[in-house]
Every structure is written in C-alpha cells, then in structure tokens.
C-alpha cells in the first residue's frame, strides 16, 4: 500500500469479505494505514464503514481475507489489543448507571489500567475536554455533545496506539464539532497515535486527515486520496469532486465494479 515509512502498515486489510446472513457487506476490501497517520473514511450510507471498524476492533472475524492490526489478528488475538486500541462510537455509548467520571474510569478498568491511576487520568481528560465540574453527572444529565466528550475522554484515557472514531462529531453543532475535531487531531498528532475517522462530512474528510479512503457499495475501496496539510482552495475543489466521484461511480464506466467477483 501507500507506505511512506517503509514500515508495514499498522492496519492492513487484504481481500476482506464480510457476509452477514442475507447481506454481503464487504467485498474484496484491501487497504493499508501507516503508523502515525490520520485517515478519514467516507462512503454512502450502508457501504460497510462501521463493519470495517468492527473488523479492526475484532468484534467479529472476516468471512474471508485477512485483517491485520499491528501485525496481529484482532479477532483471534483479541486480548493482545488491550490498551492498544480504542473506539469512539457515533452515539456516545455511556453506561447510564455510571457518572461521567465513572464512565471514563470504567474504560480504564476494562483496559486493565491500574486502579490507582483511574481517578487522576479521568479527571485530567474530562477537564481537557471541557467537562470539569460535570464529573458527577449521570449521562442523562448531560447534553449530547457533553456525552460525546465523555466518550472521547474514555477512549483517550486508556492511551491507545490506535484510535477509531465512527462519525463521532456528526451529531453535534458545527461549532462544538469543530472544537472537538481540533482537539482530536491534536491528541492524535501530539500523541503519535494512528487515527481513523469515519465521516459523512466532505469538509471534515478534506481538512481533518492525511488521507481519504473512499468506500463504495458493496464494501469496496473506490479511491485512496492523499490530502496535503494546507491545500489551496482550487485543489480542495478538485479533491472534493474526486471523492464524490469515488462514492457514486457511474456503474458501467467503472473498472473496479466489473472486477468484483460474482457472489
């Protein structure tokens, strides 16, 4: 793949298929993401983005092909990924019976971080994300954006090497989302982490990361676009067109489409 460093990609999909009962979600999906990269994933709804994340997380195995994360199989070597990976779901997925602070601590408990560190780390992350003073609020007492920030704090508090975000900023107003995005980019870059962000916002895709993976139904890589750090407006428009073209190909004129094995 597009390895800049020469090192093997930290996330690598090769010919991955995922078949659910009655639905073929991913077909021959192959891509690689390097260590330290911040990559966005776009694609029309139902094209298999979340399924791709679940495979990276090892929540289920692929039907065919291989998924490697840091050289390991995330499903077969489930435990190995402890403290190495974390995800921020689109919905915050907080435990309703735990306060904001406790929710962050629970993530660390799950990840096997020593108990003595929970409180300090959790308070630190909550205050960095603007939630100081709200530590003892239950999820139902928080706004949607605040819950999302607790969810970010929970993921970052375990200090993972790889962090995934599934449309984590899309349910928020533009100002809050912008703030959280910047926060996220900074955390990933300064922490030397690898970040993968699913988004429905083309602007987010074009400004957030180093690279855009464009998925196309049924779960296939349509394009892989490198994005310069400070692109000029003309280039941005061009890239935007390219992303859109990748997402919605004219069915007949696309060579990749005919290469899809008939299943």
């Amino acid at each position: 793949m597009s390895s800049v460093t020469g090192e093997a990609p930290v996330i690598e999909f090769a010919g991955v298929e995922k078949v659910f009962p009655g639905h073929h979600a991913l077909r021959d999906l192959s891509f690689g993401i390097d260590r330290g990269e911040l990559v966005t994933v776009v694609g029309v709804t139902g094209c298999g983005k979340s399924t791709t994340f679940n495979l990276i997380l090892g929540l289920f195995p692929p039907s065919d092909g291989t998924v490697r994360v840091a050289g390991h199989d995330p499903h077969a070597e489930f435990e190995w990924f402890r403290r190495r990976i974390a995800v921020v779901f689109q919905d915050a997925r907080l435990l309703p019976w735990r306060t904001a602070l406790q929710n962050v601590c629970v993530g660390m408990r799950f990840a096997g971080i020593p108990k003595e560190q929970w409180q300090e780390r959790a308070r630190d992350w909550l205050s960095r994300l603007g939630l100081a003073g709200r530590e003892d609020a239950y999820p139902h007492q928080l706004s949607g954006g605040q819950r999302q920030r607790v969810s970010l704090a929970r993921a970052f508090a375990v200090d993972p090497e790889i962090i995934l975000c599934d449309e984590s900023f899309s349910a928020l107003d533009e100002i809050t989302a912008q703030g959280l995005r910047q926060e996220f980019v900074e955390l990933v870059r300064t922490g030397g982490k690898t970040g993968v962000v699913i988004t429905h916002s083309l602007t987010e895709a074009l400004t957030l990361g180093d690279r855009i993976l464009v998925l196309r139904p049924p779960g296939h890589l349509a394009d892989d676009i490198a994005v310069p750090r400070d692109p000029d407006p003309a280039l941005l428009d061009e890239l935007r067109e390219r992303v859109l073209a990748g997402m919605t190909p004219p069915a007949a004129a696309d060579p990749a489409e005919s290469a899809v094995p008939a299943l």
Partner: protein
Amino acid sequence: MATSTVTPPPKAAPATGTRTVRRRFRDPSIPILIVVLLAVWAIVSHFTPAYDVPSIPSVVRELGHILTTGKTLQSLLTTLIRVAVGLVAAFAVGLALGLLMGSRSLASRYLLPPIRFVQGVPSLSWVIIAVIWFANVEVRVWFVMFLVTLPGFALQTYDSYRAVPAELRDMARSFRPGRWALFREVTLPAITPGIFTAWKVNLGLGIRMVLIAELVGATVGVGAQLLSAQQLFDMTSVVSWTLLLAVCMLIIQGAMELLEAWALRYRPRTGDHAQASVMAPSQKG
C-alpha cells in the same frame, strides 16, 4: 472548547429514594383508606357475632399477645425465615440458570422448556408432592418455596440478560475487559431492574404460598397457628395472624422499593430529561 448549553443538575445528587418516601408520607390516601377500613370493620363487627367478625379491640389485644409472647413471635419469624431461605435459594439458582440460558443458546434450548413447565405446574400440586416425598416439614416448605419462585427468577434474569443493549456490550468488548469486569460493569447493572421486578413478584407469591405449605405438618409457623385457630373457631386469632402477615409483607415490599430506588438512582426521574432511554434513538452502523 465550546461550552454546552445544558443547565447544571441539582447539586444534591439523585435522592429518588428519600423523595419517594417523603411523597408517600404527604399523600393522604393511605391514612384515609386505613380509617375507612377500620370504620367499616367496627360497624360490621358491631352487628355480627364475634366468631364471624371479631371486634377491633379483641384483635388489637391478640396482636399484642402475639408480638409479646415468645412462642407466637417465633412462629412469625419462622415463617418469614422460611420464605427468605426459599427465595434466596431460588434466586441464586434462578440467576445462575438465567445467565446461563442468556449467554449459551444451547442451555436455553434445553433449560427453557422445563423451566416453563415448572412454572405451569399448579402451586398446590407442589404442596401435595412435597407431602408425599418428604417427611421433614422444613424440607417440604423449602421445596415448595423453591419451585414456586424459581421459574420467575430464572425467566426474568434470562429476559433481562437478552435485553442488555448490544451497543453497550460492543463498547465494553472493544476495551478487552475481563469476564468479571464485563459482568460487574455491564451485565449486572443492566439486569438489576429485572431482578427487582422478580423479587417483588416472588415475595408476594412466596408469602401467600408459605401458609399453604405450612398447613400440612408444620407445628411452628403462621400456617400452623392459623390451622389451630381454625380448629378452635378462634376468628380473632385468624384475623390477627392474617393482618400481621399482610403488614409484614407491606413492610418488606416497602423496604424493597427503597432498595430499588437506591440501586436505580441513576435513572432520570420522570420528566427530568428528554433522553430517558439508555441509548440515543438513532443507531447508525
């Protein structure tokens, strides 16, 4: 960082439990009902012979006697302990069976039908079977208590387990939790409301059934006391014991509700907040 617009919640964290109690004390319906009941009773007992409807003073005297005499007090405690022992055993086994059925489909296929069958057997049949099978009174009562309440605990646990949101389970699994941490932080809190429901239903069932089980062979216990009262046509005693047990039941259920309010204190009070559900309504992916 953008600040959000939600107003801070009342600083004193959820005091749902005490609040409920206070509301109940302010509610006049219970005292009014008690007064009406006593009035009707007083009037009826005035016009009927004491062996049909005993007078209030005689019942009060009898209650005083029961609560101050060692032997009768022991009967009351024995009955309550029998219920407690039976229910705790049924709860322990039911919880284990429910969790097993919830987590292993093989277990649910083989255990669910027999448990449903046990649930369908009339309680009185268990009493008769217990009399034939066991000579020991304690074993008989325990057997009946256990089988009558076991299906409720098992099935309720099973249903609650299956209702644990998959989203929360996936969230937890993404961190690679140990089995115990996953159970303690996700499964157990998620099934707790169901467990409380099962306890409330089974307490009522247990207290009603324990008397029937005690009618056969027991020499100590409220059932035995009721039986001897019936043989002596001692209506005062019958009413007193019945009242006593019903009040005990109300107290236990009240305590249960307090415990429940405390355990589920994280829940939004009705009208507290729009997002009352566990998950956001829109689940993508």
